[in-house]
């Protein structure tokens, strides 16, 4: 690559980095070594299009993003200030055209992110050598491109990307499947080798009377039948499977290279997932530390106005959009204040006296310690669940809004705390995306795939659902069905790669009319 090849930082930036890094450590931030690089806007856009990595596999989507970023920059609509990637060492990019005050702000902000990457539990399973891994992925896909042609590989990547978000965010923390299998196998062995519990103890010469052989045989046969019956009705997969990609990898009829490409897409999806899972916290935490470091240490008096301008620009709120930077930093500050003043625990909760609550100050000074703990264990959902308070909502004028079908407008729905919190948690669940699971890999005993949409009150966007199902059925090689809700009725979407069909969900066993017609073909 033309960049990232040992371009030394200018001396003044290097001095800044050293000073801010020392300060950050002094505050107790804990991060991997951080490598800063100076890039111009063109390179920044390119890196941003590639998700922060200099080498990615070839795909038009990166070109589209790059194009868009360069355009919106040249029209003055947006500007990327900084970028940092979760690796060890951390790589962060500074924009050459920025003035010194901005560089300080960005460096301080980056150390906040680096600390978060290293310390937050949800990042603990991510691959810290992703830089190499990404390059490795690129090399593999490039090889397939050479062998099978650009069109072919790109078309397949498009399909994989279409379902890339169908992964199980909790899987990295689950017991590995091999381990589960080994344990259940061991349990089965134990059951089999153990003496039958339904045999009475008896002296050998009395045995055939106490445990008559005919009766035992009868019982064995019954048990065997029961086991067989259970095996017949056993579902595949046994439990609904969140990780649709893994299910496809295990069971879809893919060629070797396709299998590899799909596993690459899945790998990268898992790598990026925690960043979406902790957007509010991560940005809030980094913003908290850039303000702290800037205002208490790094800022030169001549830079105050520039700094204030850019900080407030980052924190700006709008009615339609909750700013994760703003929400995050305010929540961290709120937590810090509450734990400093001791506004927590049963005593605080039980207190009904408003005046007492307002002047509540136990002078505990636990705030800093508490926010460090929060950044270690929480993700956005638990963060909101645990620390969003009615007082906070009122202070920040939060409201929930909803789509009004009749007017085609989004309207303010409520300012009640419970509703706001519920709405916020809803929209954070799975990044606000629908939760889809594999229910049956041999649906109607015809090798069709049955997926289920966990209905949470919002219907799927139909045109996209169709397109995605088409892609899925191409991957699966057989028709794909999706249980969901259409126009407030339970329904099954069916797609065989070309044709598309919606049927109201029928009771189990009942066949759809179309089937008969199809079977005669």
């Amino acid at each position, binding site marked *: 690559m*033309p960049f990232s090849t040992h371009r030394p930082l200018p001396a003044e930036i290097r001095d800044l980095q050293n000073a801010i890094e020392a300060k950050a450590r002094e505050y107790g931030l804990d991060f991997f070594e951080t490598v800063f690089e100076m890039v111009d806007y063109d390179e920044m856009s390119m890196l941003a299009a590639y998700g922060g990595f200099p080498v990615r596999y070839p795909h*038009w989507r990166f*070109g589209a993003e790059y194009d868009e970023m360069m355009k919106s920059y040249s029209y003055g609509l947006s500007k990327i200030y900084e970028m940092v990637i979760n690796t060890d060492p951390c790589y962060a990019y500074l924009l050459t055209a920025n003035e010194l005050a901005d560089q300080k702000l960005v460096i301080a902000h980056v150390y906040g992110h680096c600390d978060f990457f290293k310390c937050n539990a949800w990042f603990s399973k991510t691959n810290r050598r992703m830089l190499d891994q990404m390059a490795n992925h690129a090399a593999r896909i490039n090889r397939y491109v050479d062998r099978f042609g650009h069109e072919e590989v790109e078309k397949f990547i498009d399909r994989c990307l279409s379902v890339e978000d169908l992964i199980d965010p909790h899987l990295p923390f689950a017991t590995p499947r091999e381990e589960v299998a080994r344990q259940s196998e061991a349990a089965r062995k134990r059951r089999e080798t153990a003496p039958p519990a339904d045999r009475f103890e008896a002296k050998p010469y009395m045995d055939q009377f106490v445990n008559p052989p005919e009766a035992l045989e009868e019982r064995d046969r019954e048990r065997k039948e029961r086991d067989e019956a259970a095996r017949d009705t056993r579902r595949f997969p046994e439990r609904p499977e969140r990780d649709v990609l893994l299910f496809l990898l295990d069971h879809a009829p893919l060629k070797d290279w396709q299998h590899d490409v799909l596993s690459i897409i899945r790998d990268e999806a898992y790598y990026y997932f925690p960043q979406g899972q902790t957007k509010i916290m991560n940005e809030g935490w980094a913003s908290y530390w850039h303000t702290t470091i800037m205002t208490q240490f790094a800022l030169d008096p001549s830079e105050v106005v520039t700094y204030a301008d850019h900080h407030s620009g980052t924190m700006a709120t709008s009615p339609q959009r909750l700013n994760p930077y703003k929400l995050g930093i305010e929540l961290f500050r709120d937590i810090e204040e509450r734990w400093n003043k001791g506004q927590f625990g049963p005593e605080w909760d039980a207190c009904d006296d408003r005046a007492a609550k307002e002047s509540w100050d136990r002078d505990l000074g636990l705030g800093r310690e508490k926010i460090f703990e929060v950044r270690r264990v929480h993700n956005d959902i638990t963060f909101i669940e645990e620390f969003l308070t009615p007082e906070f909502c009122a202070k920040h004028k939060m409201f*929930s809004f909803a789509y009004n079908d009749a007017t085609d407008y989004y309207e303010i729905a409520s300012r009640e705390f419970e509703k706001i919190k519920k709405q916020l948690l809803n929209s954070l669940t799975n990044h606000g995306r629908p939760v889809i699971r594999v229910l049956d890999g041999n649906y109607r005993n015809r090798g069709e795939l049955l997926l289920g949409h966990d209905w949470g009150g*919002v219907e*799927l966007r139909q045109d996209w*659902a169709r397109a995605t199902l088409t892609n899925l059925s191409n991957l699966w090689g057989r028709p794909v069905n999706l249980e969901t809700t259409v126009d407030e009725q339970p329904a099954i979407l069916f797609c065989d790669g070309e044709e598309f069909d919606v049927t109201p969900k029928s009771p189990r066993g009942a066949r759809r009319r179309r089937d008969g017609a199809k079977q005669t073909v």
Partner: protein
Amino acid sequence: MSRAIDRDSQRFKKIVRGKIRGDLKKYVTQGEMLGRKGRETVSIPVPNIQIPHFRHGQKGSGGVGQGEGEEGQPIGKGGRPGEGDGPGTAGNEPGRHIREVELTMEELAEMLGEALELPNIEPKGKDEISASKDRYNSVRRTGPDSLRHVKRTYKRALKRSIAAGEFDPRNPVVIPVREDEEYRSWTTRPEPQANAAVIYMMDVSGSMTDEQKGIVRTEAFWIDTWLKKQYGGLQRRYVVHDAVAHEVDEDTFYRTRESGGTRISSAYSACEKIINRDFPPSEWNVYAFQFSDGDNWGEDNADCLAKLADDILPHCNLFCYGQVESPYGSGDFIRELRRVEGEHDQLILSEIENREAIFDSIKEFLGTGR
């Protein structure tokens, strides 16, 4: 050095172009492009170049925001509440905005040519007509100072001073004199060039409504675009007629509204006059396009056919008659022309029922490759 992102960018542009090619008919018939006439490039909005995912729809969706406002107060139009990503927004998928791509008119014409399988035109008169072109590719000893060839002049001065023994390496001053100077010079080269002229004729009698004129306008635009790509220089003339014909400028051509009767022969006379005056057929590729609703004054028909056969068709590469369907016109004229169609290769007839038919009509007109 070629970068990976450039390759991805190229790839993306190729996909976009493919998309436009697929939807070309839509762009051609809707006439959206007309507003961009005269510019080098056009921006075309291309929706739906994105990867589909399972996403929530709008119905029943919502989010959390911050700010003033009463319950029930609208905060944003459906479809795009808060762009960009972020929690609490219903529209948090990227790529909601429609992408626009820039294409040159040339590229667009090429796509049109491909889609319609239009043959390239073999212009006549390529050998006879020439335009001269200057190229600066030689030197001479006299000329204006602005064309002085500094390097050559210096070299000659250096050679002279060394030969004369005046040159001192420790003080390497070289002073050119008049004899040292050389100047750039040019040679004039004739370049064959094919010129084309288009004459548009339109019936503006009362029976032509705005809708019909819109169709004519769109079709004329695409004909222009294609011919411009085929020829270096393209001249256009416009004639409107009811019972009498006038030569007008382009703007007037599309705006004029008369209410008189219709006498097509008047337009043919005007057309003939223009050809004789401006475009001697030996040097020009002349294209004539006539648009009408086919309603002519009955006694005029014979006159028309005679004029067409004697004075116009022999001088034209193509004479295209497009008849737009009008609620008022009888549409007889095309039948008159049909009778003589077989006798003249240059004569092309096309009936344009509605906007949809523009696409095929263009193909009929330009598909001959003449």
